[in-house]
């Protein structure tokens, strides 16, 4: 089991996700500095959360042009599982690996709190083990949007990974924290080997976090 975590200037969840992967898989992920140009054989590449390049220009835009991203895109197209969390999701969209856009939260403010999500796609390598799960979000720009054509495409192709929901798994406006279209919290690429999600599973992966629901996402990839 070999995993890699990309580190950009301004990444700040790189260590957290590495710790979660280590705890769950007992393998230490390798940290890859963004100026490097290639990644060795990998079973999972994580693009972590944070504020790469200070979110300047547009969240994820500058990081998507970092040297390492060419190889991340290449590996993704070859089928290597790639997981983008929060700012990582923004970067994967900016890299063209995922559809849509992440706009400013509808509240126009940063939101950090626990939310609930449930998988819509139930067969992908990332989502197959997860039920209704609690984990935190922490972002300013997580309001997912795609045009109606693309929406139909990702729906028809079962690319909606997670939706915000309530305790009973109901997807409603009330359970939508940031205004995302169709309560979308995470989406997959066409081949289902790339996942971008706004919630932070690594912050709900041990007892000290008060909740371990995020573990299943890593477990389904790592085992």
């Amino acid at each position, binding site marked *: 089991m070999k995993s890699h975590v990309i580190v950009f200037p301004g990444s700040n969840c790189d260590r957290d996700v590495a710790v979660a992967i280590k705890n769950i898989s007992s393998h230490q992920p390798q940290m890859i500095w963004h100026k490097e140009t290639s990644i060795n054989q990998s079973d999972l590449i994580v693009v972590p959360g944070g504020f790469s390049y200070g*979110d300047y220009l547009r969240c994820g835009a500058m990081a998507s042009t970092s040297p390492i991203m060419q190889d991340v895109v290449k590996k993704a197209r070859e089928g290597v599982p790639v997981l983008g969390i929060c700012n990582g999701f923004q970067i994967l969209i900016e890299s063209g690996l995922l559809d849509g856009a992440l706009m400013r939260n509808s509240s126009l403010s*940063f939101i950090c709190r626990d939310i609930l999500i449930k998988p819509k796609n139930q067969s992908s390598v990332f989502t197959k083990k997860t039920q209704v799960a609690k984990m935190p979000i922490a972002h300013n720009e997580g309001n997912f949007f795609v045009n109606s054509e693309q929406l139909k495409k990702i729906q028809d192709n079962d690319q909606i990974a997670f939706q915000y929901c309530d305790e009973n798994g109901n997807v409603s406006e009330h359970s939508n924290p940031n205004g995302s279209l169709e309560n979308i919290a995470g989406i997959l690429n066409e081949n289902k080997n790339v996942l971008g999600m706004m919630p932070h599973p690594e912050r709900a992966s041990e007892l000290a976090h008060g909740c371990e629901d995020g573990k299943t996402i890593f477990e389904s990839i790592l085992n």
Partner: protein
Amino acid sequence: MTNHNWQFQTEQSLVENHGLKLDEFEKIVEGLGREPNLTELGIFSAMWNEHCSYKSSKFWLKKLPTSGKRVVQGPGENAGVIDIDDGDVAVFKMESHNHPSFLEPYQGAATGVGGILRDVFTMGARPVANLNALRFGEPNHPKTKHLLSGVVSGIGGYGNCIGVPTVGGEVNFHPSYNGNILVNAMTVGIAKKDKIFYSAAAGIGNPVVYVGSKTGRDGIHGATMASAEFDEDSEDKKPTVQVGDPFTEKLLLEACLELMKEEAIIAIQDMGAAGLTSSSIEMASKGDVGLKIDLSKVPMRAQNMSAYELMLSESQERMLMVLDPSKEEMARDIFKKWDLEFEVIGEVTDTKRLILMMNGKEEASIPINILVEDAPEYQREYIVEEPSPIKEYKSEDFDQNNILKDLNAMIMHPDLSSRKWIWEQYDHMVMADTVVRPGSDAAVVRVHGTNKGLAISTDCSPVYCKHNPYEGGKHAVVETWRNIIASGALPIAITDCMNFGNPEKPAIMGQFVECIRGMGDACSKLNYPVVSGNVSLYNETNGEGIYPTPAIGGVGLIKDLSNVKTLSLKEDGNFLCVVGKTANHLGNSKYISIIQSKEEGGTPEINLDTELRNGNFVMDAINHKLIASAHDVGEGGILVAISEMCMSGNLGILIENESVFPHGYFFAEDQSRYLLEVSPNNYDECQKLANNNDVHFEKIGIVGGDKISIKNIGDQQVSALKLSFEMGIEQISH
């Protein structure tokens, strides 16, 4: 003011505009043996203002207890350091950014956070938690909404981006802050005891290195501005507010910590207030050496900057270091990797002078000791005013049928309501070590990779301080102590942030003196020393001072995280018990201020012996695993505290206590009290432990259901109460 005997070449108005008194200027001339040039005048102005020199407060601050078994570094360095076992230390400090935040709330608050973070990582610690203590004017004051939302997004904007969780804090609202809000920011970091970095320059000939951002014209004379009162024209001072860049600070943090793993840094000092001036002089003074700096080598953001501007700029995200010359290239590579400026701008000398060169010309030459040791120090005149009298309230004056209605109104008030609207804008979980999130008594942050944690709390009750500065000073210290104990930790030490009005007014100076006396007594009794701090004076607008506000940040150690307690009620059938006696002290309680709209009745007094006994008892009971949840009884009294426990745990309670004076019992703010949830199985043992330690301990109710029911009075749905509770602060922001 014109002095007809002015005998100097330098214009008198120039001296006054630099915030220097005329006799202070005479002292400069005497020290230099000549009149200073403009650059030198600017340097003296920056070093001798209140903010940097502590000239009014030093004499009194020295009276605070600063030593203890776990104190590794007390006041005088960038931050205080305490031992938290296993070779680990916690490094922390709180600092004010009041004046800039009033002028430009987002940037003022953001750079306040940036500054205190640098103070902590300068010492070699990785910051692990940010907290704050905020005071705004009345909730309905026209400026409050703008200031509150600006400050909150500024704190979040900086902390969220750099990736340090903002885990707690306190906020209150009072008219005395209508024209002068307070923004106090605290950072806690963790380091290894044998890897702490200090600021004393050493090694004649060693390179002085500038790292971080380029220097621009922002923030020139910020510290001088922060040492003056406000008036109608203060808005014009906006350009003196610095602009923060948390992204660069994140790079600076990582680059510094990377370099600190090597044996390369001899001394390091962040450029905070008064920028290059205070950092270079601090390093030279601590090391008893001189520095020669070539200002033309300073990386500049603007063109044609003068020596004066370079020395007084408060551009953010910069550091000054003295390096081992053999490690210079290695250090340069690290900063290059992080895309940061790295420039050798000078060297350590044996002249004991600060010599500044620019384009080959000498711009300043000042003996360091004149700037530091000979800085003015005042024993200001002070008057200690009589504390407000304590009022006895009588049961007949209250209608007990209103108790639940009053409770509802109180917890909706911005002073007591949920702070969720605020903390949801802060990333309080990044680093994945937040064990107790905001909203409990103290935040708890795990020491990464271990099973121990730090409990941290900030507190102060300015109304208590105003009406009795001595008791108020005690209270601010003791409140953090209680919060830390209720979280399951051993309180270790505090940092203080002393926010007061104009010290040249004897009544204000009297408040300062009395608050310090109260704090000192509490710290001594509780073995809870002061390890770092900051003073912010001249918090006045149009001659009106703020209430005395000695904000305290306390830090405690939890050796085993399984002992962490929160205030959430846990289980049906458990008993809720109160520790400490209730004596109906309603004076200046939240009940009197919110329900009766009055400020009267005196400050509750604290018996420090009782405080120590009760606190030790709670610590013992928690360590013996007898307690399910714990909460200190603070502002609002017992019923507000019970409600908080119910709302947090989504559980109800049946309160059996029958008092002859229900309002007094439920809303009094008598001190040294806690609420403990105890399972029936543990109750007898708890009672015994209390009796053995001469601690007042009584059962007041049984946990269960979804209502707060008070025998003979009525009941209230917890869920309905929660709706009111969560509305309070949000009302202001809409």
